[in-house]
């Protein structure tokens, strides 16, 4: 653990706001590519997929923060909120791309949410993320106290739903979505590894949300 102390103290000096900037720039750049013909033959699908993937990556990144601290002593806690909110941002534009640019009609949007299981599952994941996004601020953390920690455990089912959504939407038996689902399930399962008695130095600071 001591090995990572310099890294941790260096990270303490890195601000979290660049995460937001990068998310906005990446999303905007993809959209610009789409508008200017840089996303190939089917820009709507490409954009929808790219936003969905970014959301999934960030979901996984967010789930890595706690295990990295617990098992490797790397402290990325101060970036967790930014990662979570960036994730929510990408899932939101993923949903909007689908509804506005792809399906294009409200009645069909609704019909798809109700009728197509992979959409229903993705939507369930999105709905679970909503209260988490809304309460990702210091005020909510203070107001909710221990309830906040409990509430934010919703990210586990949300992530699993996101992974299942990906497995369901591809045709045939494809490896990639299964690998992602396995990673998500593994990261969630790590939460249930029983704790040993003693905690190491370096990691004793109380977790900040």
């Amino acid at each position, binding site marked *: 653990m001591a090995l990572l102390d310099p890294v941790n103290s260096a990270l303490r000096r890195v601000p979290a706001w660049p995460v937001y900037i990068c998310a906005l720039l990446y999303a905007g750049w993809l959209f610009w590519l789409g508008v200017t013909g840089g996303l190939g033959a089917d820009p709507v699908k490409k954009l929808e997929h790219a936003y969905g993937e970014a959301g999934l990556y960030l979901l996984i990144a967010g789930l890595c923060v706690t295990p990295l601290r617990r098992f490797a002593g790397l402290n990325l806690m101060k970036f967790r909120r930014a990662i979570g909110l960036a994730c929510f941002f990408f899932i939101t534009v993923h949903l909007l791309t689908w509804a506005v640019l792809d399906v294009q009609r409200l009645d069909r949007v609704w019909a798809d949410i109700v*009728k197509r*299981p992979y959409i229903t599952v993705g939507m369930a994941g999105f709905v679970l993320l909503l209260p988490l996004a809304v309460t990702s601020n210091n005020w909510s953390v203070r107001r909710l106290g221990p309830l906040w920690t409990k509430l934010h455990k919703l990210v586990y089912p949300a992530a699993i739903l996101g992974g299942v959504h990906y497995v369901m939407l*591809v045709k*045939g038996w*494809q490896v990639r979505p299964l690998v992602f689902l396995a990673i998500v399930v593994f990261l969630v399962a790590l939460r249930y590894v029983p704790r040993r008695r003693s905690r190491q130095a370096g990691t004793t600071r109380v977790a900040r949300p």
Partner: protein
Amino acid sequence: MAYRWKNDLTDRDVTDEAVYLNRRQLLAGAAAGVGLAGIGSRATAAELEPTSWEDVTSYNNYYEFGTGKDDPAKYAHRLTVEPWSVQIDGLVDSPGSYAFEDIMAKMTVEERIYRFRCVEAWSMVVPWNGFELADLLEMAGVQSGAKYVAFETALRPDEMPGVARPVLDWPYVEGLRLDEAMHPLTIMATGIYGRDIPNQNGAPLRLVVPWKYGFKSIKSIVRITLTEDEPPTSWNKANPREYGFYSNVNPEVDHPRWSQASERVIGTGLFARRQDTLMFNGYADEVGALYAGMDLTKNF
């Protein structure tokens, strides 16, 4: 038997270099009514603006080369298409292995500009070059007991990176009822835009059945078998609930994953409106009779 169906657009409209490079003119030519003698399919010539060569040859589903839309264009160059031969067997008078050149020497290649509709709810318009499948089957001599035609794609693990994974039960197989196979709209395509068909589009010869979802139009065919019984088809084997034997384009029968009521038209950009999908992909007048009396929600 060739030329049993006529396009609303003519050869010149698509293959003439100048016109090929200038789609405006192509539309103008079409609007002026060039070759409107075509059978009255509902789509007007103006609707059938061919998708660009670039899009037709870069956006493909050919899972033997990977499941990504751009994988076929990236990897299909590895496929050896010369020499090529097609085994024609089953209930035919002259079974055997037919060399590609020998087939081409006997067939009349014509241009067919068809709508192409994928089950994933996107569509293109492709100016194919090819010959009628009926001509090929007649060359081999269809016997009276034959009711179906089975097709098989090449399986070359050395050349096809995608078959290392069990996405489907390889080799890819497809099938048609004999009357569907003999229909004048059904062709074996060997070219696009007047050029040899690129590997990613199914070189050297592939089936094109324009009123069915794209996956029925099997690529890089090595075997054609005339059978008495309905042959197995790959997507139906993989997921019988979602993919039927017929797989006719039908806006009223939804796939569990995609509404089939409308489609995204490839090449029209990020903000394009979806287009309503037509019954039998716009070829209802030509093929509707094949399915008279059948319950299309059951025989999907």
